């Protein structure tokens, strides 16, 4: 295999040129925060948490969508990056109605963990407190838009892994919403197979099974990744 030399956080590495900065970092135990990334499905650089500094480029670039290049010099944990990660986390919380104490995902939520990770002790931005629907029309699952961070993992999993494309996105800016089919109640979807992959892909308490209470939620996003690995290997 051809390799190229790169430097990440002063560490010299020889890496596969087909890989992204994020993939290389994960393989070499270099921590990068992510929210919209889910191994096995296509990365879109939406959450902006994986921003890295690359020597010679003024802009911060998302590690999940940027391929490595020969002699690239990358920094993943500078004060500038930490500042933006904190801002991003605060904006996630300010944009919708996240109340960890009563959320079914309390203690098992990637957004909550992110808050701890970036040491978010308060939020500097005004909360939008939008009015968001809770779609309970599906017989087994609930879609609570109050807790959605628009990572679109559910959209991509449904499309790329299940092949159903029940989920999609409508509107723009802060009015953006995940929709089922052409914005119909989830329970009336003609494409949803009720496979539950979106539930496991969702990093927060936005999608959850109706029958459980706080403390009983078990999300396993890794099963999506394992499934895609097996498909690649044609198992």
């Amino acid at each position: 295999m051809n390799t190229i030399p790169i430097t990440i956080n002063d560490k010299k590495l020889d890496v596969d040129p087909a890989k992204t900065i994020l993939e290389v970092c994960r393989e070499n135990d270099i921590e990068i925060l992510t929210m919209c990334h889910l191994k096995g499905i296509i990365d879109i650089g939406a959450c902006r948490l994986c921003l890295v500094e690359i020597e010679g480029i003024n802009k911060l670039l998302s590690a999940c969508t940027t391929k490595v290049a020969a002699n690239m010099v990358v920094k993943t944990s500078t004060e500038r990056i930490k500042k933006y990660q904190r801002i991003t986390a605060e904006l996630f919380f300010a944009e919708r109605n996240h109340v960890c104490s009563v959320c079914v995902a309390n203690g098992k939520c990637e957004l909550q963990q992110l808050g701890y990770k970036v040491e978010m002790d308060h939020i500097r931005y005004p909360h939008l407190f939008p009015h968001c629907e809770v779609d309970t029309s599906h017989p087994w699952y609930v879609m609570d838009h109050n807790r959605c961070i628009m990572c679109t993992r559910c959209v991509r999993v449904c499309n790329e892994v299940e092949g159903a494309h029940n989920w999609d996105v409508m509107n723009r800016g802060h009015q953006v919403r995940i929709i089922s089919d052409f914005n119909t109640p989830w329970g009336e979807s003609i494409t949803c197979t009720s496979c539950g992959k979106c539930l496991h892909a969702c990093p927060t308490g936005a999608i959850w099974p109706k029958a459980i209470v706080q403390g009983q939620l078990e999300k396993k996003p890794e099963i999506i990744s394992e499934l895609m690995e097996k498909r690649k290997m044609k198992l």
Partner: protein
Amino acid sequence: MDKRKLFISPVTRIEGHANITIELDDNGNVSDALFHVNEFRGFEKFCEGRMYTEMPTITPRICGICPTSHTLASVKACEMIQGIQPTYTANLLRRLMHIGQNLSSHALSFFHLSSPDFLLGYDSDPAKRNILGIAEKFPDIALRGIRLRKFGQELSERITGKKIHIMGIAPGGMAYPLTEENRKALLNWIPEALQTVQLGINIIRKFHEENTAMVQSFANSPTLYLGTVGSGGEHELYDGKLRFIDADGIILQDQVSPQQYLDFIAERSVNWSYLKYPYYKPLGFDKGFYRVGPLARLNVATRMKTPLAQKEFEHFKSIGSGKPVHGAFYYHYTRLIEALSDVEDAERILNDPDVTSLHIQHHGRWNYDEGIGSTEAPRGTLFHHYKTDETGKLVKVNLLIATGQNNPSMNRSVLEVARQYVKGDDIKEGMLNRVESAIRCYDPCLSCSTHAMGSMPMVIEVKDKKGELIKRLERF
């Protein structure tokens, strides 16, 4: 007639925020008194639109003192919606946690909030008339009170991993079992907890003996009573049927299913408080005031379920010669009799061989569009009533909280005590503490927080009809 008013704001050493207004006539005599609850929570409204299965998680946040009661009433309503029952072991574990909360709450009420009045005196220095003052003068009592509360919280922690806003009480049962290690650790607490409760009983009985006239006359107007009882009329906290009695002890309704609560209880709003006025429907608003809580539960009960508590219960019953005891002061005593029963019952449950079984949950799904759950919170009978659409989304929520049901009586008690102790010409802090203590007897839980210290600011202002200040008394 020219009216002057006394304002007690805030009322201290209670759970929540409230004020009292005392109206005086020209001669300085009390003409009226109003108990205002000046906080608004809005749970009934903002829970609309949520999934009904979220309610056992959302509603405990109403209160940091009695979250388990809210969870249990809520989960029972959910079980009615699903049409299922919890497993035997789940019921044992729920009872244990409920006992833990009741003990913890009663310990807080007696040792932290009320004992300063009994042990230090109503007219003692307000700066020291609190748990810190008790810790200084009676360190063993203060420590025991704190440890009894710890035991109560540990009963929840060792089952669900959390002391206060517990997780894992799910429709159909429990999410977590009790391990053998935790069962043994909890059993080790029993002897100490029994000793502490009995110490509390000795304190209150001694106070009764030394202050018989005051205890018997303190806010003792007759009312009806509501409480939950077992099938034989025995005292019950977790699961049973409702019993209403009148002021003479005559049973008005017995073995009423909590699902029928609306047939017997109605509510009315008043313009001076966010707390509604519930009343016993068959007798109407004017004659239907009833009380709930420890005093009501022991007044309605035929017997206790455990031997030591039964012995104390018999002494309590002898006070009223078998008839209901009306003095609000007896809330403290009945709270401790319940605590005694709690410790004995906890020991019984912990020795049940099925308490560590792994068969802890039945599973169900939405089947009915209405659910009503009830339990006895530390402060009295609690109802959760939900209506849903066909997907399980809540369209209506009604929560009838124990303190709300005591509201008319608390208001009446304030008036009685104010008439007994307050004279407008010469207001002393100790007088107003007695008025506050009438409220404290009921241990009202007005919100989810505890404002426990006597060091909280209190300002009393006497104003004339035009609102001009006549006298101002401050406590900081």
